[in-house]
């Protein structure tokens, strides 16, 4: 630190430093950044207590590729920095906090704003704003107001508000939440349960984790309201053990809520008792299915059972049970405090509210976005996602995780809501969204998802256990270049049979990627089987390496690197590859300094 500044008392008023410490932020070194700020501000003579108060941990704001994100607010102005590490802290303090000059080259770029500054943000608004480990922050942001309001009326009143709001379950199937609650509330059992399904299993989806890490109290508040509405006295949060940060924040939040009297006996002095336990799941994908989840909480192997009876009638330990997704529950307090009409004004008909999507794949900006239901796919992929990298052509978007389907680029203007998605053979699912461009092979993509689902099948029902395995094997045969005539028809027929006979949602939806890719990209399957080529150039076995004689500079590097002695080359002559000997390892392609090998 320069000695001149030591004597100068820096002019700092209302300084707030917010450091992202979601799982992404922590992994990027968020904790170290916090330490660096604390230490250096203290050393600078800015009072330690100010330092303590002014540095805040915040949850994930969805833009994890830019972590660690740091907000500096002082004297009424605010700036957000990206990719901040421990060694960058000194300069920020020196130039920004003390001298008042923003370090411009470290500020977030337009992608961050396209991502982060969406007009409608309900659930993610407080993530990245409040300290997830401080209940006071949540209360200051109108937290637990919804609960107070709900408890001042009758349970049936709460259910009516939720019914009127048109909220549909965010876990995937889109069953109306109010209706579900109503069915359960009418069950005459003394003991009922409400479960929060935080077993977020879709690869690439992490909205539930972000909500819990960034704003755990919103989930807890939603659960208490739900418990009151259906008459449950106990709640469970089923969360995967792979989310250690989320679990620890939940534990802290539950402790704080108990201390404040939001959980426990006689909440808000209205005679309502409610408490929540955490149950850690061991990471089985199928435990996201509600009956398997219940079995897992009961200590049994996570396997679904036939419905009916539905959990709302006979669930956990045989008692009426409501299972809601994290996103659904954290929406509840907002609906209660702001009203059903406000909520249903957002989104489209029959699909009110906002939905969080996690957008990944071949797209420029990846991460979490909260958008109103019914927004067009185009807006999501191009306006928020920034389109495909290197301006490649968009091919398709896979929604709904591994059990969803792909939507071809020709449907780019379709609205994203439950009904439209299922009409094109896909589904909302938990909101995972994988963007694919011309470099994605659709057969390979279907194979990838099938490999996942057939591995994660619980093994109970035959069509899912063996059928999906056979689907996967046949897809593998095609991508390995051993496809035969009739394979497409085989896949279609088997996939259809698996869909209509499987026991649970996993089996019923697992063939979706196969069916939807055949439906929209049959030509790619045919190219693999009949022409022995992979149009996207992904499938290794179908790749053919050819030397472009015009580009070849005759250096002989490929000749020397080839482990199979498949390349013939002589000085001053372009190389050539013997297809019979080539083992398609790709070494020549990698080493060619002139990109002469295709």
């Amino acid at each position: 630190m320069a000695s001149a500044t030591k004597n100068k008392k820096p002019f700092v008023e209302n300084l707030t430093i917010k450091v992202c410490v979601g799982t992404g932020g922590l992994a990027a070194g968020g904790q170290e950044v916090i330490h660096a700020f604390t230490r250096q501000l203290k050393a600078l003579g800015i009072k330690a207590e100010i330092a303590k108060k002014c540095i805040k941990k915040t949850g994930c704001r969805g833009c994890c590729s830019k972590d660690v994100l740091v907000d500096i607010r002082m004297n009424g102005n605010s700036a957000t920095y990206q990719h901040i590490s421990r060694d960058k802290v000194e300069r920020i303090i020196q130039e920004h906090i003390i001298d008042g000059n923003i370090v411009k080259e470290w500020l977030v770029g337009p992608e961050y704003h396209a991502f982060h500054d969406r007009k409608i943000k309900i659930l993610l608004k407080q993530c990245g704003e409040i300290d997830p480990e401080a209940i006071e922050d949540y209360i200051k942001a109108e937290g637990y107001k919804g609960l107070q309001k709900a408890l001042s009326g009758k349970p049936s009143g709460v259910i009516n508000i939720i019914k009127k709001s048109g909220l549909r379950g965010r876990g995937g199937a889109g069953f109306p939440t109010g209706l579900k609650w109503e069915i359960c509330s009418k069950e005459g059992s003394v003991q009922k349960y409400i479960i929060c399904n935080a077993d977020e299993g879709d690869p690439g989806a992490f909205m539930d984790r972000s909500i819990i890490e960034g704003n755990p109290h919103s989930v807890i508040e939603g659960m208490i309201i739900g418990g009151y509405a259906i008459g449950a006295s106990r709640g469970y949060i089923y969360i995967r053990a792979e989310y250690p940060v989320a679990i620890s924040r939940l534990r802290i939040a539950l402790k704080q809520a108990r201390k404040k009297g939001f959980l426990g006996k006689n909440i808000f002095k209205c005679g309502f008792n409610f408490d929540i336990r955490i149950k850690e799941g061991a990471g089985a994908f199928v435990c996201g299915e509600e009956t398997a989840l219940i079995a897992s909480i009961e200590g049994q192997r996570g396997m679904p059972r036939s419905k009916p009876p539905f959990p709302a009638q006979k669930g956990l330990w045989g008692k009426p049970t409501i299972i809601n997704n994290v996103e659904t529950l954290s929406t509840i307090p907002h609906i209660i405090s702001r009203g059903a009409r406000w909520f249903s004004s957002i989104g489209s008909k029959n699909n009110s509210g906002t939905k969080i999507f996690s957008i990944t794949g071949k797209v420029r900006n990846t991460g979490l976005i909260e958008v109103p239901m019914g927004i067009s796919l185009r807006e999501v992929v191009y306006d928020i996602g920034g389109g495909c990298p290197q301006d490649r052509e968009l091919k398709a978007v896979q929604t709904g995780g591994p059990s969803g389907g792909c939507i071809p680029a020709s449907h780019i203007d379709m609205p994203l809501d439950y009904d439209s998605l299922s009409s094109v053979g896909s589904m909302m699912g938990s909101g995972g969204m994988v963007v694919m461009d011309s470099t994605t092979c659709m057969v390979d993509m279907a194979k990838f998802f099938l490999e996942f689902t057939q591995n994660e099948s619980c093994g109970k029902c035959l069509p899912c256990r063996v059928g999906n395995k056979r689907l996967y094997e046949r897809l593998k045969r095609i991508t390995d270049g051993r496809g035969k005539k009739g394979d497409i028809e085989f896949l279609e027929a088997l996939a259809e049979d698996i869909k209509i006979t499987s026991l649970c949602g996993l089996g019923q939806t697992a063939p979706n990627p196969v069916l939807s890719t055949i439906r929209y990209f049959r030509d790619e399957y045919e190219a693999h089987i009949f022409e022995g080529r992979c149009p996207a150039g992904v499938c290794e076995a179908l790749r053919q390496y050819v030397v472009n004689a015009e580009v070849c500079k005759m250096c002989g590097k490929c000749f020397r690197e080839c482990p199979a002695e498949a390349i013939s080359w002589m000085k001053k002559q372009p190389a050539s590859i013997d297809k019979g000997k080539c083992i398609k390892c790709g070494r020549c392609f990698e080493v060619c300094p002139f990109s002469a090998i295709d």
Partner: protein
Amino acid sequence: MSNKKIKIILNGTKTVCDQGETIFNAAKKAGVFIPTLCHDMRLEPYGACRMCSVEVKGVPRLLPSCSTPVSEGMDIRTESRTVKRIRKRLVSLLLSNHPDDCMRCETSGACKLQNLAYEYKVDGREYGGEKWKLPIRQANPFIVYEPNKCIVCGRCVRICNEIVMAGTIDFTGRGFHTVPDTAFRTARTLSNCEFCGQCVSTCPTGALTDKKARGKGRVHELKRVKTTCSYCGTGCSFYLNVKNEKVVRVSSDFFGPVNQGDLCIKGRYGYDFIHSRDRIKTPLVRKGDKFVRTSWDRALSVIASNFEKIIKRYGSDAVGAFSSSRCTNEENFLLAKFVRTVFRTNNVDNCARV
């Protein structure tokens, strides 16, 4: 189940059935046969094999009849084209991971999978693909487990946990590699298994077989003789499976009023004594230091005269009777009555009292 009757349409015929019962049971009562692999009357409905799936009007998917309750006006088809296609599909999927060795399989002829494959004319060879190659498990005296023949219907797992409550086996693995097994795949011993053979009794294929009966004859060679177990007073019934006048196996009598097919280790595996050389087949009377064969009449008169002598000399309380819990209630009652009225004493007891 309530007594309320409701109307359904079963294969186009109006049928009356009880509210709350399953489609499978309603069809059975109406004389409509629905094939199934994972269903056992003794167990809770499970819905794993999907073989009993039926078409219900207005429902896009097929419903498993074993676990779906009937509802008013339900229009059910058990033999539609889709249903038959699905049955074919399911059997062929099972066979795609099943060894082709019916010719030397213990259960050939009694195998439900074999019967269905025959009925629907499928072999499962169109799939190719991976097949299990798991080792045979037989490091115990009673039960042989050939996992490659297992169709993962879960009946063994459920009977072990629902009825016997021994918890010896459960599912292991995930996806295609899900298979019932003991914890950590350890061998069955008395510390983890009761050897009641309930799992063998419910296995629809040749995956679980009785070790002692292996190679001793298959279902078409065996004569089944119904009898009552002699081990205790419960009175379980079962079938002795006889080949060439020799008992080679015990099999369950699923309609036995007392036990409905359930048996314990003694009833199911304790039949060695029948053909034992050491078995005593006639009464023996002591002469000096030796036992001598005799007739029942002679033996009874020796017993009677000795009792008379003792009572005359020392009084009624000098004698008594101790009966066995292997006797039936009626036999025990008779003995007590006999001791009190003929011996004129209350010295009577039973080993079951301890």
